[in-house]
């Protein structure tokens, strides 16, 4: 059996070896070509789709793929060698795992985000603040504590001194929004940018500064990148004037 597997493995190796030379060849006037894979926290969906379009406008030779998931999932993917060039998480703690393992360059904070309470359009249950989330008749969804938004939300509730018994612990912000949009939950704690991107489907109830927790978004080039120039250009574009303006327009706070 082992011999058989070894033979099958060797059979597979040969064709792929001939392919490895194909990639890096041709460099035109624009040095930025080839593929760029960007991993980003789910709450960055709109922002990074925008950043992708903006960078493609100046560097049409690039093929940029955005992949969105919870920050923890993304970090696990990079730890296990997923082919990624850039990673952006929704908190510094998860990013720190990659820094500690030497898997990314020094991260740079490119945006911050405030928390907001998300409710059904028009706020039919009259939620006026975090304290209301402790009401027994209110169905509340909170992110799982393994996700940054879940940790921030719990910190905010702690500051307010409110205990909440959530009906579900979704693993990304979009699932939480969906629960409120579809009326299966009455309220949740998400980022300001999520409420604005959901448009008329939900309403937001602001959380005052004294209780709010500000999320910090770091971005870093993955050390194992095969397209370092393009990866660096993506990161730089997030931090330059136009990139920052675009983020602020979506509801983010400048770093």
């Amino acid at each position: 059996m082992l011999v058989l597997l070894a033979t099958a493995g060797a059979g597979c190796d040969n064709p792929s070896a001939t392919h490895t030379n194909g990639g890096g060849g041709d460099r035109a006037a624009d040095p930025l070509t080839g593929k760029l894979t960007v991993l980003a926290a789910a709450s960055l969906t709109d922002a990074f789709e925008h950043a992708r379009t903006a960078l493609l406008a100046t560097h049409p030779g690039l093929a940029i793929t955005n992949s969105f998931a919870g920050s923890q999932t993304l970090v696990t993917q990079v730890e296990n060698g997923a082919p990624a060039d850039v990673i952006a998480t929704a908190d510094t703690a998860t990013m720190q795992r990659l820094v500690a393992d030497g898997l990314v360059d020094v991260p740079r904070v490119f945006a911050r985000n405030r928390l907001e309470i998300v409710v059904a359009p028009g706020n039919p249950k009259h939620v006026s603040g975090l304290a209301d989330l402790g009401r027994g008749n209110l169905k509340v969804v909170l992110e799982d504590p393994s996700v940054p938004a879940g940790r921030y939300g719990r910190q905010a509730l702690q500051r307010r001194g409110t205990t909440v018994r959530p009906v579900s612990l979704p693993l990304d912000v979009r699932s939480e929004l969906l629960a409120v949009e579809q009326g299966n939950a009455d309220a949740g704690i998400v980022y300001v940018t999520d409420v604005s991107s959901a448009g008329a489907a939900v309403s937001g109830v602001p959380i005052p500064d004294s209780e709010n927790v500000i999320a910090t978004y770091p971005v870093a080039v993955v050390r194992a990148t095969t397209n370092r120039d393009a990866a660096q250009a993506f990161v730089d574009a997030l931090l330059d004037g136009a990139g920052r303006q675009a983020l602020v327009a979506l509801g983010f706070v400048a770093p």
Partner: protein
Amino acid sequence: MTNRRPPLYLLIPAGAALALVLVPIAGLLQHVPWHTLLTQVTSDQVLTALRLSLVCSVLAVVVALVLGVPLAWMLARTTFPGKAMVRAVVTLPLVLPPVVGGVALLFAFGAHGFAGEALAHLGVTLPFTTAGAVLAETFVAMPFLVIAVEAGIRQADVRYEEAAATLGAGAWMRFWRVTVPLIAPSLAAGAALTWARALGEFGATITFAGNLPGTTQTMPLAVYVALESNTDGAIALSLVLLVVSLGILLGLRHRWLGVRV
């Protein structure tokens, strides 16, 4: 009949096919935290998920039996217009991505769904409840039961039922005293496969029923959540699911696979 040595051009892809399944399992086993396995598997979080998984999957099998066996009988023994269509629809969850099933359940049984609104009048809410998790598991797993039982009923000799009828047995008695004993093997195989599928259900459950320990966080959801924070716990949980699934398949190897080793 025993074959001579199989030719290499079959042996190599066949070995690769086997490796395709074995290699990931080997990868999992390689990382099992053997020294802390017992503590991981008996932690509160795991036991809660395990208990909930057992309750939900057994209830899903019960619902699938109560609803699926009559349906299988209809498909096997009666003719009605659109039967091929009905069979296709009933087996749809087999090929449908479970997440799609979960979204569909959400839009039907959610607070804004037509079925959800009707149920709300009766005071029944399904999303984010254990009943919702059972519904999601039943939706995904019931086709296994219907297919197995329909095949069993087709193979059962209809003359036994006819003989019972001439002896004066009513439809209910014929079904319970003649048909059910005849199809007992396929009933058991269908129920076991349904149970295994329900036990492993993830996509429809997390999408429709949500994720709350003790209420809707079944074993596969606990594996996924643990992967975010406690990799060893995730692997330990995976091992439990792997052992259970393998046990079911080994127990069924004669019945379902129809192969005698």
